[in-house]
């Protein structure tokens, strides 16, 4: 498909939803794409099946802290550098492929493709927002790329070459911190057969459809929202006002709970870098890796984990996780226990009303 300026808004909304409270605010990516596509330009979104078998792809993602991104914003220079890096690639790749199609990390690879004038593949390595570089399908399959490259906003690069099993998260995170908590990430070029085997296909177009659907849900009655969500396997878990936000420290980082008081229900939403668990009157009603979304009911903006605060009027929604994350091995990497919760994955139940 041709991705044009008219698709930016729904894509950004879909991207924020896929972030499940993380992934970074898509807003800066929206602005960058808007200026790149202002004079009628477009990005070709190509399915993996339509790419020639000889094609090579370069993944793109931003790694770092949202706090650093909101100050340092985004540049263009690093995109060219990473795409054509002579140490990393024997030839210039044919397309960009998103690494984590969620939040700002969904919009940035599209902007990179626009800057470079190459297509963006309709796939990614995670299918939702994730908190760790290790939470990817290639990592799950034990087939990480040969090398990773990190490029800071001033063009300084660090290449990490992998041998066997290793945690990219442990290696890369301190490097990113030294780079000032913001870096552009790519890997050695991926060939099409690898991508077909180990990436999640269709993420980009699915995200756009998700955004388009959610645009139609604003101002709807709650039961209508639930009915429409059911058509894509999602569910409205409840609505109300955030009356309390409590944070506490834990060995695995700060943990926060939101209390959402509504007319018919009282939800608690547990979060760290994403929304992880929803509890309704003591009963777990949804959990990671399903995509939990907290949306401001007035602006219809999905809230980030940092922005969800007391006094906001919200709806809480669950959407199904990509299937790869629901296998026993997938849940071991991405389920509640992987995030430090002493509970098993609890699927939410679609339908049945509120």
């Amino acid at each position, binding site marked *: 498909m041709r991705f044009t300026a008219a698709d930016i808004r729904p894509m950004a909304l879909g991207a924020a939803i896929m972030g499940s409270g*993380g992934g970074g605010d898509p807003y*800066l990516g929206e*602005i*960058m794409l808007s*200026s790149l596509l202002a004079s009628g330009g477009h990005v070709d979104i190509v399915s993996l099946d339509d790419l020639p078998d000889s094609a090579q792809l370069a993944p793109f993602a931003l790694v*770092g*802290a*949202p*706090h*650093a991104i*909101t*100050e*340092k*914003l*985004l*540049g*263009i*220079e690093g995109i060219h550098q990473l795409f054509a890096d002579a140490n990393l690639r024997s030839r210039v790749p044919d397309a960009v492929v998103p690494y984590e199609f969620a939040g700002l990390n969904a919009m940035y690879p599209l*902007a990179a493709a626009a800057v470079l004038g190459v297509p963006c593949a309709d796939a990614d390595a995670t299918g939702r927002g994730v908190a760790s570089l290790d939470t990817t399908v290639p990592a799950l399959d034990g087939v990480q790329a040969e090398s990773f490259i990190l490029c800071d*906003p*001033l063009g300084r690069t660090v290449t990490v070459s992998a041998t066997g099993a290793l945690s990219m998260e442990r290696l890369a*995170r301190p490097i990113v911190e030294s780079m*000032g*908590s*913001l870096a552009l990430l790519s890997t050695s070029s991926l060939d099409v057969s690898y991508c077909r085997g180990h990436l999640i296909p269709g993420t980009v177009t699915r995200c756009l459809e998700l955004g388009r659907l959610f645009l139609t849900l604003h101002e709807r009655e709650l039961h209508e929202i639930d009915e429409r969500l059911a058509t894509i396997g999602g569910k409205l878990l409840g609505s109300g*006002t955030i009356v309390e936000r409590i*944070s506490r*420290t834990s060995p695995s*980082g*700060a943990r*926060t709970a939101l209390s959402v008081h509504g007319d018919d229900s009282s939800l608690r939403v547990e979060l760290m*870098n994403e929304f992880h668990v929803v509890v309704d009157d003591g009963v777990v009603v949804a959990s990671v890796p399903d995509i939990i979304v907290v949306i401001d*009911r*007035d602006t219809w903006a999905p809230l980030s*984990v*940092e*922005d969800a*605060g*007391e*006094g*906001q*009027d919200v709806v809480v929604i669950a959407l199904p996780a990509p299937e790869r994350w629901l296998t026993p091995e997938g849940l071991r990497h991405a389920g509640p226990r992987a995030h430090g919760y002493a509970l098993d994955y609890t699927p939410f139940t679609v339908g049945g009303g509120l």
Partner: protein
Amino acid sequence: MTGLRLGLSITQRLIDAVVADTDSSIVRSVTVERDGALKRSLDDILDAVGGELLTSVSTVAVASTLLSDQLRSNTALQRVGILRIGMTTTAIPPLSGWPRELAESIAGPQRIVRGGNELDGAPLDTLDTAAIREFAGQCAGQVAAIAVTAVFSPVAPQVESEAVAILSEELDQTTRIIPSHLIGGFGLLERENATILNAALAAAGHELIDELSRALQRHDCGAELFLAQNDGNLLSADTSRLMPVRLLDSRLATSVRGAGLVTGHADALVVDSIDGRERAGVLRGGEVALEHGVSSIGGVRMLHWLPIGFDDGGQPVSRLRRYAGTDELLDLGSAPTDSRLRYASALAVATAPVSASVWAIVSGPDSSLSLTRQRAIDEAILAGADPNETRIVSVVETPLSYMPEGRRVFLRAAGPPFVSTFDNPQ
């Protein structure tokens, strides 16, 4: 009688005045219809308050919609040069996301130069002083003000100060040069937006404050002058001159809080009719409920905490009712003309505290928060609060993703307006 406080609430059509005593009881309330220029209307309302009371008041505080009206009609906005420091930002140029007409009426020369800091205050890049001098040359004679915004200036303001010094050397004294750390808040684009708008409003802000000061002088009123901010809290006239963007429209916030003062309600939906336009806000726990996070003024994205309903384009009352959490509705517009509800805004501004807000990033032990608390208190005192009675009134901490132990902190300090007891005209 001492300790009386005069509050004025000014819109395009009316000026309300309330003189309140130390218990926030109304001593006198009057309204005049505006007839022509602000100068004449101010004379009318001060005459109506009466000379005897005017010599007894120790503070005069003013809420108004005037700067916001000027912003909406694109009048009195000046051309602004835009200097941004930090080459990491080039894909998101200044004025991104602004309404085109407003951007075009404000935008002077703009340039992004090398420099800025990391989030821990370490240098990000060498400051390109030559480029700043060159930029000054482009601005000479072209702009009335310059907005200077550097990456992470809230944690390291020196870079902006250095740039301001260079620009001041190169340009004549009348060019107002405003660094973004003065405006504050994290998020470079949002802070830059606020700084640009602030620069564009600088002359209009000075004019408004001069007009108010001169009116008080003409009426032999020696009271300290304060202006109400968008959130309804006060700033001294001197500090206000630096921050017109915070004075855009204080009417909604003061109406909401005043409705609570008059009726004794802690929670309610408050509807006010301002120059024929209906606006609604939320009273919660006796205070005006504020929108957290990103907000927008005149279509420009900022991070100031504004009253819910501030820039809504007419939010349905049913929605705001959910925020209020009550069915109680206080309608100021339809209150009888002799009702105290009519004077809600003027009463609230007469009795409002002076306050200042501070954003900070802290990590690790609590000691850094005590420094931040002190900074908030210092800023409130600088804004005109009484040093003996200024306290921290609000602390909001948010853990930062991917920054172990890092928290974003929002602190608000407030105290009653400081009144010098030495040179009181009495």
